[in-house]
């Protein structure tokens, strides 16, 4: 009993010491900003909380976005606040399913959404396409954090 207990204590001490060393290294790295490099976190170090940016407004123009490459999931041009998508309901499909799209003047989901991962054509939305927001995202009107030089191919311009 005794030896085991002290073994444990020694082990714990060692562990704590290692931890302390690790922590000091982490904090050292965090505070020392690389010379001349500015980060997208506004140069704030990890030990202090950066002031929160104001919440961004969602783009709700209802004007569909251009696509930049053929396989791109189109961006969502409308507000989706409170839209429930879970095992009970899929709010998106109340407008985007083939049955309903016309009434709501919404784009129908394309036939790719009916294909499962093995390429079988299903009668309804495939399970791997059910959670729309995995691929489709709304946009906020913000300045890009990093410049992006991507250009669509000529045929998509």
């Amino acid at each position, binding site marked *: 009993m005794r030896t085991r207990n002290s073994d444990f204590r020694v082990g714990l001490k060692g562990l704590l010491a290692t931890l302390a060393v690790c922590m000091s290294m982490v904090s050292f790295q965090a505070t020392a900003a690389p010379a001349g490099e500015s980060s997208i976190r506004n140069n704030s170090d990890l030990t202090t909380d950066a002031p929160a940016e104001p919440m961004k407004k969602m783009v709700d123009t209802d004007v569909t976005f251009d696509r930049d490459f053929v396989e791109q999931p189109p961006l969502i041009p409308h507000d989706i606040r409170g839209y429930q998508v879970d095992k009970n309901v899929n709010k998106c499909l109340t407008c985007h399913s083939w049955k309903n799209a016309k009434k*709501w003047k919404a784009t129908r989901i394309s036939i790719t959404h009916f294909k499962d991962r093995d390429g079988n054509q299903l009668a309804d939305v495939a399970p791997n396409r059910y959670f729309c927001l995995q691929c489709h995202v709304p946009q906020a009107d913000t300045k890009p954090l990093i410049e992006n030089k991507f250009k669509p191919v000529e045929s998509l311009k």
Partner: protein
Amino acid sequence: MAKEFFVKRYWKMLKRPVSVAFGLILLFGFGAGIIFWGGLHTGLEMTNTEEFCIGCHEMRDNVYEEYKTTVHYSNASGVRAECSDCHVPQEWGPKMVRKIQASKELWGKIAGTIDTREKFLDHRLEMASREWARMKENDSQECRNCHNFEFMDYSMQSNRAMDIHYQAQKNGDTCIDCHKGIAHELPDMSGVADWEG
């Protein structure tokens, strides 16, 4: 002079013992009426507050938690729609009917029909359907106490809303036809007649 005569006559009448008793009864009845009515009113008002509605954990842990994330809890205008704004009619008749129904629902509380999240979810469709039916019946009166097609500036709305509201107004559709789940999460909607899932 006729006026004085009128007053005098009543005074004489009241001086007779029988009439005094009668008058007293009337007066007492009147007073009691005010107190009772006031009490009833205060009581009804009290049961309309948010604190009362979420006084039990069934409401606090389920519908209230969900509602807190929605537009009717907090929005740009700073106008909050409370539980009673959507669930209790403002007119006297329908209000009484709803309150009496609500006392029946209290049995559910006592019997523990929805005292866990699981049980609550099992009963959600049934409870929601009752509210949909009620709102369909009264042309979404509670929504229209605050919102009105007539007062909507369609040009300020999103295109999607503008188009569809214009159509809805023409077709006589009511708010709850399209705005189910406006304040709470929806149950499994397969099988709900006018849900286009």
